[in-house]
């Protein structure tokens, strides 16, 4: 027994020696990939020889899986000299591993990277992604994609200001957060789908009076709270101010009268009993499932639910833009090229292929919301309402980015603060103060 301690010490000493020998600063050095002008870019895929591209994506849900499988097959048929090695993971799994993947020695050529500062911004800062401006010119992505979409995948070298600098990714799909409604229930209440805020208020009051649940909400994961708050912001704020906050612009500020009114709005909805009882303990997935089963007149969520809600509710579900100008939305995860890729030209050709007008058609056919040409797709019912809403929003200044792009911690801070506002743990001023503090901290630099 007694001898254990000297042995332990000796092992520790040897271990320390090993650690000291292998010691180097973690992270190593990072070389920024060079900007390649359009003239240097090769676009003749057939002339690139035998190439294998490793692709990490998160297109794992039913419609997503279908679209990427079809596009990959078409790509292989068109360019047999390029082999695709697809690695599919769920969104969370991809987010948790892509950092190690891109910084490792066997980095994928192409990966879907979340737009936010803690993901794409951090990778740009570390020089792990290839700037795409040369390709954008060569392939005319600058005309294919509106500026409002391109800026959501653009960063300066410092990785700290989304919406500026160089282009680092191309998204395939669009997303909006809007208001789903139960058409049958609204008809029973004798209410037309609201297009103004007073109409929306009246619909909520009427639903409540008729013993219906006005807004179905499940905020256990804290993801639904920011959607609800976003809609309240649309009512009281202006698109420009909302966008500035979402991007963490220098002029943005949380404690304003508009945001105070938005915070109060959320509390009003809660106080008047318009939200699901116990929403703080209800899972988001359970809440939309309840809405699909007929519990609740309205449900605020993203357009990614369109296939599921159509399947569950058929013709009795509709999609509304929040009244007024603004609507929260963005793009699906952009596809980016690793700076460690040996064949960036082939990778860019793949990006060009999966975002072409023909690809957008495939996306529409497989129940995804294509980021481009949504208005031209042959769709009906809920899908048509969603596609039209996106077509109108994506080209307008009313499209407001998600609130979690602003700072590296914005997702945790915003979702946590909204939850605490709703639970009464934070009052309106402290709530806005908490959001402002995060903004200030990220500006000061960490």
């Amino acid at each position, binding site marked *: 027994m007694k001898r254990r301690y000297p042995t332990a010490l000796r*092992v520790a000493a040897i*271990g*320390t020696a*090993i*650690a000291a020998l292998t*010691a180097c*600063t*973690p*992270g*190593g*050095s*990072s070389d920024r990939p060079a900007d390649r002008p359009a003239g240097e870019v090769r676009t003749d895929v057939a002339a690139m020889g035998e190439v294998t591209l490793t692709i990490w994506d998160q297109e794992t849900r039913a419609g997503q899986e279908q679209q990427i499988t079809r596009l990959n097959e078409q790509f292989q048929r068109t360019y047999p000299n390029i082999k695709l090695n697809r690695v599919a993971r769920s969104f969370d799994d991809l987010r*948790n591993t892509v*950092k190690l993947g891109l*910084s490792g020695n066997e980095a994928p050529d192409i990966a879907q990277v979340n737009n936010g500062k*803690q993901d794409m911004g*951090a*990778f740009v*800062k*570390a020089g*792990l992604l290839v700037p795409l401006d040369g390709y954008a010119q060569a392939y005319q992505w600058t005309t294919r994609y509106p500026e409002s979409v391109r800026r959501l995948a653009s960063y300066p070298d410092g990785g700290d200001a989304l919406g500026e600098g160089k282009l680092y990714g191309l998204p395939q799909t669009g997303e909006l957060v809007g208001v789903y409604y139960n058409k049958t229930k609204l008809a029973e209440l004798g209410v037309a789908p609201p297009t103004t805020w007073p109409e929306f208020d009246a619909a909520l009051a009427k639903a409540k009076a008729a013993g219906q649940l006005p807004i179905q909400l499940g*905020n*256990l*994961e*804290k993801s639904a709270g920011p959607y609800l708050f976003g809609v309240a912001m649309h009512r009281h704020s202006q698109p420009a101010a909302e966008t500035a906050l979402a991007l963490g612009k220098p002029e943005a500020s949380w404690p304003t009268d508009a945001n105070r009114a938005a915070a109060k709005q959320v509390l009003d909805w809660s106080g008047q009993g318009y939200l*699901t*009882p*116990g*929403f*703080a*303990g*209800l*899972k988001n997935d*359970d809440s939309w499932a309840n809405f699909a089963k007929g519990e609740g007149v309205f449900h605020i969520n993203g357009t990614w639910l369109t296939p599921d809600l159509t399947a569950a509710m058929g013709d009795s579900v509709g999609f509304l833009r929040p009244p007024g100008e603004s609507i929260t939305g963005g793009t699906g995860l952009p596809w980016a090229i690793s700076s460690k890729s040996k064949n960036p030209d082939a990778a860019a050709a793949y990006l060009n292929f999966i975002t072409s007008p023909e690809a957008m058609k495939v996306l529409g056919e497989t129940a995804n919301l294509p980021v481009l040409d949504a208005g031209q797709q042959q769709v009906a019912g809920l899908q048509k309402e969603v596609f039209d809403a996106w077509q109108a929003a994506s080209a307008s200044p009313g499209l407001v980015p998600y609130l979690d792009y602003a700072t*590296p*911690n914005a997702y*945790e801070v915003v*979702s*946590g603060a909204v*939850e*605490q506002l709703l*639970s009464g*743990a934070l009052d309106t001023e402290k709530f806005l103060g908490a959001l402002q503090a995060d903004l200030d901290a990220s500006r000061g630099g960490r």
Partner: protein
Amino acid sequence: MAAGEPRRVGYLYVLPALAVYGLFLLFPLLHSGWLSLFDWDGLSPGTWTGLDNYVELATEEGAAAAFGHAAVLVLFFSVLPVCIGLVLATVLHRTRVRGLPFFRTALFLPQVVAMVVVAVAWQRIFAPDGVLNALLGTPGRAWLGDESTALLAVGVVGTWVQTGLAMVLFLGGIGKITGDLFDAVRMDGAGPVREFRTVILPSLRPEIGVALTLTVIAALRTFDLVYMMTPQGGPGGSTTVPAYEIYQRAFHGGQVGSAAAMGVAITLLAFAVTFVITRIAGGGRR
């Protein structure tokens, strides 16, 4: 080892095991210790900060809260199950219930089920429209979405999981006590309480030590229950625990150094706690 054989040969025997252990356990541990001395986001080059990460852990609110929650969980994962396990084992031993194997298995069952499954099942029980609210007649109560109850709810599940382990250990321990001791104390006219105090409790010291060690470590490294039942560390961070904070900081927050420091701290804490437990409960008896 045979007498007269040079002692150094002994090291050759343990070398393969030591190599594996060193490669997969000691080296990562020391590497974590090394990383904990840097301010590193996991991507760009880190900067040497010495013990700053540790100083920050000691002063920072989030870390203090996480360790505080871990202390509460020790109560639920360890102290309560050991107490309940003692009572259950004694009762099951004394009353000679019919179908004892059934109760033993039923109570041990939570140990066999994967924690993730346990978490999902209990999440449904605690849901606003779940079984618990139906039983208590409190529809719409958000047990997991309320800052004052979320940690307790996680704790209750921990107690449910760990009690079976403690009970089975104690039942085994009681079975080893010779019948003479029970006869002797009963001849003295002792009731069940005195029998428990004078025979069962002292005889079970080693088992209590083992149960405490296992359950305290389980409490300190809790991750799955918190991660699954109360996403994002619960309302207002009310259920964050060190293991969750480590994951959050390293993989989402871009604070790898701070996460490593926390990992080292919780490892040292686990060492210290088990050292104390083995000293008090197991010491001097073997």
